[in-house]
């Protein structure tokens, strides 16, 4: 690990200001992703801003009938929250499908959204990787790519976004609240938060340098059945090969987002309208432009089958 200086932020505005004025600074929340990457010198911040003392650990009702989740709410607490369990069960389900009890006790809402890919070449500093070292090439293309993305990829990067929680938030149409270095605030729909890799896979979100996430907002509850189905190589404590987050109403209408297949949680609103027509029709629209490497072609079938299981479970 490279040496770094450390401070505990005393206010949201101060944290954003310091981060925006110092390109070497990073926020640290739970630290479960950042420290992992710092040990491997994939992340090399020269200054850490600890944001754990900012009082952003509350879950509150909004005047619109939704929920405001503080950026520092731990994954365990979010999954266990009574309102979340009752009205946004999909979110609880996605959270407890991820990582381990120990990790969820530390991991935060914002940190989870901003966790970086699990592409093995991104982690292997001996291999070229455009995300880790722009311009060096993509080792996954032509390499082992079984776990990589099948849609929204580019010639520069085929990595997936690893978060389970983000899939649920995409299904639920959450909004991200943030503060920029100049103190201005904005709201970002979750659909716009994560970018596709394009020519700049190192830029993963639309957040500006130093921009600080303060909360995630959920709109009013949708009712219906909330299902999160995660398919992975072992039954627990593994990242998704494919995951499906869905809210399905008694009449078969609903919405769906898919994890493990793209650089962001994947949702195509036009596919939602196909849900009453079944898994094949829905996944045809969802994966219209899918492009596999061969090794990960199975994911295309897996999406349809997982979706089929989810639709069946919603009827049951």
């Amino acid at each position, binding site marked *: 690990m490279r040496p770094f200086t450390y401070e505990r932020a005393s206010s949201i505005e101060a944290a954003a200001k310091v981060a925006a004025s110092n390109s070497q600074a990073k926020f640290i929340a739970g630290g479960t992703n950042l420290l992992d990457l710092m040990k491997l010198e994939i992340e090399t911040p020269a200054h850490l801003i600890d944001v754990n003392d900012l009082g952003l650990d509350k879950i509150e009702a909004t005047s619109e009938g939704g929920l405001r989740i503080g950026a520092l709410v731990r994954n365990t607490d979010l999954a266990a929250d009574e309102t979340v369990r009752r009205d946004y069960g999909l979110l609880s389900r996605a959270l407890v499908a991820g990582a381990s009890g120990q*990790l969820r006790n530390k991991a935060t809402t914002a940190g989870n959204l901003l966790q970086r890919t699990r592409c093995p070449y991104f982690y292997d500093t001996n291999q070229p990787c455009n995300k880790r070292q722009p311009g060096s090439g993509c080792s996954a293309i032509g390499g082992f790519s079984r776990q990589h993305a099948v849609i929204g990829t580019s010639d520069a990067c085929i990595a997936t976004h690893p978060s389970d929680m983000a899939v649920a938030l995409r299904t639920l149409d959450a909004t991200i609240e943030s503060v920029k270095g100049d103190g201005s605030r904005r709201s970002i729909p979750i659909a716009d938060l994560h970018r596709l890799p394009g020519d700049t896979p190192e830029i993963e979100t639309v957040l500006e340098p130093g921009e600080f996430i303060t909360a995630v907002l959920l709109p009013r509850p949708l009712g219906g059945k909330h299902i999160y189905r995660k398919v992975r190589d072992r039954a627990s404590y593994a990242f998704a090969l494919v995951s499906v987050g869905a809210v399905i109403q008694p009449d078969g209408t609903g919405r769906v987002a898919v994890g493990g297949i793209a650089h962001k949680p994947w949702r195509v609103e036009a596919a939602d309208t196909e849900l009453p027509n079944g898994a094949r029709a829905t996944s045809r629209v969802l994966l219209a432009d899918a492009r596999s490497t061969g090794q990960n072609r199975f994911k295309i079938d897996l999406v349809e089958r997982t979706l089929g299981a989810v639709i069946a479970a919603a009827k049951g």
Partner: protein
Amino acid sequence: MHPTQLEISRRDLLISSAATVAAIGIAGGAAAQASRNEMAYTTKLTFTVNEEGRELDVDNRTTLLDALREHLHLTGTKKGCDHGQCGACTVIIDGRRINSCLTLAIMHEGDAITTIEGLGKPDDLHPMQAAFVKHDGFQCGYCTPGQICSSVAMLAEIQANIPSHVTDNLNAEVAITPVEIRERMSGNICRCGAYSNIVDAIIEVAGTKA
């Protein structure tokens, strides 16, 4: 990029302390060096470990795991993967289990940390420690401190009605079942495969508690 007070690089600091040495001699240089470290790359911290107040001055990079093992010589907590994947480093902080390898010591100012040494002593075992011995919940024993710390806090999580991946009904009380225990303990890997005995040990403790 605007240079700020926080951006003083190591090189600048070395240059300035070298200048100080030149100006005021060796003693002044040593003082400048100490303050350089304090200001930049090391931090003093106090926390409670196993109910004892401890004071440390650590390199900012020190993980909680290394602080416990290398600085406080509490070597019961083990380093397995050092990347949050194996659970051997599990400790309990303010009642919650975490991976001590994926957190910085300096982020735990004022916290109350419990390690395997704090749960019980050889002549006064914690019920979970006794149950692991009774049920042979280990072979080589390397993952055991993490397994035990994890299982103690895990039962508290069930009691606090925190759901898991295998919880059927999110809106009912979580039950203590072998399936729940297995799922919740998946963050602790045992290369010897003592899992079924570990589950037996935990069930016994859960049973006597309920």
